[in-house]
């Protein structure tokens, strides 16, 4: 297919049918399980996965887990509940805060943050980490900054050094891994498979946690770019509030979208560039279609290559000497 701004448009009914068939085959024939359990985050990927699972198996064979913690966005739970109700699926609600507190997640983060911001108060201040702005406009490399937001609206940012970054990153990943534990408990108890919600944009760029949201039994939407997830979600009647919601990791008390947290450009252009990178589209064609300069395209492709290379281990089984 020739590269154009419409290259990611999908035939939504055909795609929904193809994915539903895949879910049915995997769950019933391959795994020989009775249904699917999905973590319902209040975001579009999990809403779509739940909707596709209902189409594949029927609402009575889909279980949603709503698993917020104290740093989750306040809209995550109500949006998740509304979507689950719209689909007619059963949900279980699990507040992860006590479990995460017992594992010291919040305390570990507070220790690091207070080294940088001495007057940080976790019950009062909000925090987030982010990368430098749009990489199509800025040449800065990917170095995370921590931002502490005070109740009076002031904010202070601190560049994260290697040890601080790793400490915070490791602590935060416990949240996603705790969700995986809950999903597998309910999956195994009910003889269900754990349905993944990672899309292609995230999968290729390593935007998921090893054995966290990457720890699942099937990944039915991993071939869809984020913008295609949105197309399909809209066609399948995912609720408007979720369709309009800015995608975010939802692991920080401060508001941060996926774009500023990891991808450094809007999905509408990121997905087209990722497609072009994946398919070896000639640079002059990219320039013509997207109106970008060569240095912008080079910078984007360098970023894709770097992220893909650094996250190779997320997309394969652990290396071994097994032939």
């Amino acid at each position: 297919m020739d590269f154009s701004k419409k290259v990611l448009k999908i035939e939504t009914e055909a795609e929904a049918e193809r994915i539903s068939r895949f879910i049915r085959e995997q769950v019933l024939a391959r795994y020989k399980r009775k249904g699917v359990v999905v973590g319902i985050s209040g975001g579009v990927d999990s809403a779509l996965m739940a909707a596709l699972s209902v189409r594949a198996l029927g609402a009575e064979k889909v279980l949603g887990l709503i698993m917020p913690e104290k740093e989750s966005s306040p809209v995550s739970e109500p949006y998740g509940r509304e979507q689950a109700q719209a689909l007619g699926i059963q949900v279980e609600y699990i507040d992860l805060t006590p479990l995460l507190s017992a594992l010291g997640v919040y305390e570990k983060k507070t220790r690091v943050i207070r080294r940088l911001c001495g007057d940080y108060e976790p019950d009062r201040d909000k925090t987030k980490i982010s990368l430098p702005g749009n990489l199509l406009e800025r040449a800065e490399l990917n170095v995370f900054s921590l931002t502490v937001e005070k109740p009076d609206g002031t904010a202070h940012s601190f560049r994260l050094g290697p040890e601080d970054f790793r400490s915070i990153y490791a602590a935060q990943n416990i949240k996603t891994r705790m969700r995986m534990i809950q999903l597998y408990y309910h999956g195994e108890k009910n003889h269900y498979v754990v349905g993944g919600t990672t899309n292609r944009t995230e999968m290729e760029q390593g935007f998921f946690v090893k054995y966290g949201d990457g720890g699942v039994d099937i990944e039915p939407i991993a071939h869809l770019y984020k913008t295609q997830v949105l197309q399909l979600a809209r066609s399948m009647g995912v609720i408007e509030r979720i369709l309009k919601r800015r995608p975010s990791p939802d692991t920080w008390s401060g508001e941060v979208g996926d774009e500023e947290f990891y991808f450094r450009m809007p999905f509408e252009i990121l997905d087209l560039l990722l497609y072009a990178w994946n398919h070896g589209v000639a640079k002059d064609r990219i320039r013509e279609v997207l109106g970008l300069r060569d240095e912008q395209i080079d910078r984007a492709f360098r970023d894709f290559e770097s992220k893909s290379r650094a996250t190779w281990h997320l997309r394969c089984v652990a290396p071994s000497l097994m032939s």
Partner: protein
Amino acid sequence: MREKIREFILSRFMLDAKPEDLKDGISFLETGVIDSTGVVELLAFLEAEFEIEVEDSEIVPENLDSVDSLCRYLESKGVTVSPP
């Protein structure tokens, strides 16, 4: 100073390589020698070893992406580097 840079890159990012494998002009990012998290470690090394402060706006490939660029960058920050 060039040797200190080379020693750091080899010991931290090219553990399985011989010193002659590190060419001073090669791009770290394009060859995968340093990935996105590696940049953070490189910054920490530069600031500690050469007692400089790297401004956010200076964290760009032009300054950091090869042994040669690092030497040029450090010279611009007033640090003396040894010739190749």
